[in-house]
């Protein structure tokens, strides 16, 4: 491939043994926000000029731009729907890091094979069918591509390029000195252990040059030996460190390479799984490939063979670090390694959420909430879990009292709330709120618009009598006015008493709704002080006119004051009334009716309503 005039295509500059350098860019297959951010954090710590992720391929999403941090700044990383699209736009990219699941990982590799520019394919998924994987491996070999994985965390080239989640947190990366290159080439199967090995290497040598975890499956795309041979060719690598594993015969390929002098750099190697002799029946270790089917596959046999072939094999994992340290010191002494002066990694700002959870920072919250919590295992209403809400059968009244008054009121009270909601649910289609809802519904508006159109009518004249009655009566009682004085004072002001009077009903033809509530309250309430007062007032008003009875709005408002004053301090009770809790009760109840009217109109397929001209007196003259 011809080199681009812009000089951006560094791929062509890479030596055969070099998979990554400080300019290498990758595609991430599947939306992996955390892994991508970790790569970018590494890039910034390593002082890379441009991020190592060129783009994300998200087959199930749509094309977009995704925001990430690059040190303290924010950058945008493009997201494409297909690998082909991404490759068209970013010709320099030669690495694909596929986070596709075990179901589609092989397919993602097949897609990558179609793109000549992609040379290295990392498969993270565990559990790819072995036959699929063997086919992928064979094709990769034919096309000269390098596969890392499957079932791996990836690998890292210190100070240059990091695959996905390798190395863990940025703190660990800097502690293990992965932000700048050392002299050690490392390879193992296990991703978890490679991170441990980077720690060991950083403490006992001048640091890691490159580390790869080939993955724990039976048929890894590249083998331990493949990477050791790359390190052997790479003049920057001065010593080799490797961790093998019980099961399979890959380690014998290393033995053969040692014997054939294909590996000449010092190799410190340990094969884990020497414990397998302790197990009477076969034990499947953590990795799929880790199972000795024959004597030669045991860790003991492999360690002995490696030692015989010239590898530096410790006595056990305990002195692995010592052997690495001894080997390194010998190389320094021979001046094969000259440790470079330490470079400081630029500080990466602490992630806000991480700092918060670590208790390092605090910040005043913009919002406070004290009535419900959805963060835990179960939704909480106040102090009650949603399962208790049903177990204790607290009903709508109980839920309302918990969320509105932060207290589960006793059953007599919650039942009263239920009654209020039931009684206020509707008052026919002719009242102004319902009428508005019907008109809006017929204008083709949706449920919420129609409902709100009705609710907006609620105020001093419509539905407001609850609030008004509660306030006027309790004010009079609190000021110590006798019922007669109260009636007189209202008359002097020329004002109607809220909650008194009905269009049709009268003392001889009582409103059943009022009777039901009155009886219930008389029977169950702890105190009926205000109701008693109101009934005295009613006696006076009805003596003047038959229909000046305590109406339904009045009885509800007044009894609600009695209820609140029994369950809360007087101040709290008054505050709830002032805040509009009583009004809320009416809004809540009547919403049921409004929505009923809305559904009714829709069901009846009623057309647009237009008020007739003849019903409007046009007095424009």
């Amino acid at each position: 491939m011809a080199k681009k005039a812009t000089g951006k295509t560094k791929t062509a500059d890479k030596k055969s043994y070099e998979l990554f350098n400080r300019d290498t860019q990758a595609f991430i297959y599947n939306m992996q926000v955390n892994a991508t951010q970790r790569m970018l954090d590494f890039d910034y710590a390593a002082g890379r000029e441009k991020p190592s992720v060129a783009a994300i391929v998200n087959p199930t999403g749509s094309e977009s731009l995704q925001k990430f941090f690059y040190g303290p700044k924010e950058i945008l990383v493009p997201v494409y729907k297909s690998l082909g699209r991404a490759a068209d736009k970013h010709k320099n990219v030669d690495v694909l890091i596929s986070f596709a699941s075990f179901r589609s990982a092989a397919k993602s590799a097949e897609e990558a094979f179609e793109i000549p520019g992609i040379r290295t394919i990392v498969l993270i998924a565990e559990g790819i069918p072995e036959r699929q994987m063997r086919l992928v491996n064979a094709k990769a070999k034919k096309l000269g591509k390098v596969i890392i994985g499957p079932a791996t965390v990836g690998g890292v080239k210190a100070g240059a390029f990091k695959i996905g989640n390798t190395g863990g947190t940025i703190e660990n990366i800097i502690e293990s000195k992965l932000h700048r290159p050392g002299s050690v080439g490392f390879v193992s199967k296990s991703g978890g252990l490679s991170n441990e090995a980077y720690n060991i290497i950083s403490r006992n040598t001048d640091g890691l040059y490159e580390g790869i975890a080939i993955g724990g499956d039976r048929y890894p795309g590249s083998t331990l030996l493949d990477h050791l041979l790359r390190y052997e060719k790479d003049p920057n690598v001065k010593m080799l460190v490797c961790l093998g594993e019980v099961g399979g015969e890959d380690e014998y390929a290393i033995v053969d390479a040692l014997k054939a002098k294909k590996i000449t750099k010092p190799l410190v190697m340990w094969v884990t799984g020497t414990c397998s002799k302790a197990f009477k029946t076969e034990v499947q270790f953590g990795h799929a490939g880790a199972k000795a089917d024959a004597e030669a596959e045991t860790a003991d046999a492999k360690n002995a063979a490696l030692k015989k072939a010239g590898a530096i094999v410790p006595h056990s994992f305990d002195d692995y670090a010592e052997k690495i340290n001894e080997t390194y010191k010998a190389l320094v002494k021979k001046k094969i390694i000259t440790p470079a002066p330490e470079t400081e990694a630029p500080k990466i700002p602490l992630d806000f959420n991480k700092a918060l959870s670590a208790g390092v920072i605090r910040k005043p919250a913009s919002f406070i909430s004290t009535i419900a919590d959805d963060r835990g295992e179960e939704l909480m209403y106040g102090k009650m879990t949603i399962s208790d809400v049903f177990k204790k059968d607290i009903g709508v009244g109980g839920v309302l009292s918990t969320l509105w008054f932060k207290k589960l009121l006793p059953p007599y009270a919650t039942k009263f709330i239920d009654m209020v909601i039931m009684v206020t649910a509707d008052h026919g289609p002719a009242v102004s709120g319902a009428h508005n809802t019907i008109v809006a519904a017929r204008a083709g508006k949706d449920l919420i618009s129609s409902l709100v159109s009705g609710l907006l009518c609620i105020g001093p004249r419509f539905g407001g009598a609850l609030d008004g009655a509660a306030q006027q009566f309790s004010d009079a009682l609190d000021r110590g006015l006798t019922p007669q004085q109260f009636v007189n004072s209202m008359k002097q002001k020329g004002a109607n008493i809220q909650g008194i009077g009905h269009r049709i009903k009268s003392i001889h033809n009582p409103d059943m709704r009022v009777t039901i509530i009155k009886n219930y309250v008389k029977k169950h309430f702890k105190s009926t002080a205000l109701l008693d007062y109101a009934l005295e007032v009613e006696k006076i008003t009805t003596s003047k006119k038959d229909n000046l009875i305590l109406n339904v709005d009045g009885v509800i408002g007044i009894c609600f004051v009695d209820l609140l004053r029994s369950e809360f301090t007087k101040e709290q009770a008054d505050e709830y009334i002032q805040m509009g809790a009583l009004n809320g009760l009416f809004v809540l109840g009547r919403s049921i009716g409004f929505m009923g009217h809305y559904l009714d109109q829709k069901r009846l397929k009623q057309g647009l309503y237009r008020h007739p001209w003849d019903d409007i007196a046009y007095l424009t003259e």
Partner: protein
Amino acid sequence: MAQKAIREADGKAMMARLLTDYTDGKYKIQNRFVSVGPETELKKLPNKYKWLQKEKLVVKPDQLIKRRGKSKLLLLNVDWKEAEKWIRERMNKPITVGTVTGILDHFIVEPFVPHDEKDEYYVAITAQREGDAVLFHHEGGINVGDVDAKAVKLFVPIGETPTAREIETKLLGNVPKERKALIAEFIEGLFKYYADLNYSYLEINPFVVDGEGVTPLDLAAKLDDTADFVSANKWGAIDLPAPFGRMMTREEAYIEELDSKTGASLKLTVLNPEGRVWTMVAGGGASVIYADTITDLGFMEEMANYGEYSGDPNEEFTYLYARTILDLMTRKKNTKGKFLLIGGGIANFTDVANTFRGIIRALREYKKKLQENKVKIYVRRGGPNYKEGLNQMRALGDELGVTIEVYGPETHMTKIVSMALKGDK
């Protein structure tokens, strides 16, 4: 997630059902294989399978036991009455094969096929890194011996299928001329069947050639169970039994069930419930190294369990996992005391503080039992949030009144093993 052996009865029934599709209908194997498990009602079988009372039969245990003939676990040429009696005598009884003892609880019953020894052939297909190897020998049966040395091999690169002609020239040199085509086409179909159904191992020893047909007498097979999502429909309802003699304890079965419920990994094998050294190690690789180190220090006999947790299990799962181990290790006291190694390398993405919270919850619950059993706890771990996790562990020691020594990445991963066990012997 790996290569898993299947029962002979399942393997043969699958073959009877599907091989014909891979041989253009040329090879038909009759599905006359009955699987008998502990729940099977023997009395009802002859009604369901009429041939049982018409034919002479063969009965064998069907539990992944090798060389059954040599262990006298084979009953040949009997009628149903004898077969039934033989099974009844052995069902749910322990038996020792070689060094392994297990309970017999699965048998296969099939028709006895009278034949001459010279009609027995050996064939096996086995997966290798770059392809599959077909092994053939013209003298099959229980005396086939070392097939690796004796059998003729044909290597088939992955993605290719051998032709009958190729099989005939490369493998069937010692087969009588008149049988070559029959066997070659059988193996050709068998290979397609093996590949398409994601087998990783398929051995038929022997299969018998008589007249126009081929009959598999003894079959052993492994499927790649990661291919479940591709092949499950064709596999049908099959068992993936544990190796013979590997009886799962209740706790092991419980952990396996937990493991199947999470994307993370939870593994437990109890090696010696009375052992004094218990481990709770994070990571598939690290857990093996801890077991190595314990063995290496001469505590092989005292090693109570092997297990690991990894892949960022949530607090609840680590709690349940830890509780299971604590329960096991505090059942029987030992005057010499016990050790619990909560080990692990430096995690890539597992949240250490989170997983430790689950372990700590379990440790608190077992406070009294840990004291009574004189348990000493050693902790070593690194990774995301490890400082917080380690601090919590340190604080817990005082709270529980139990020795808890806590180390981070500055201490070599397996150092806690020697710190714990040094001076114990």
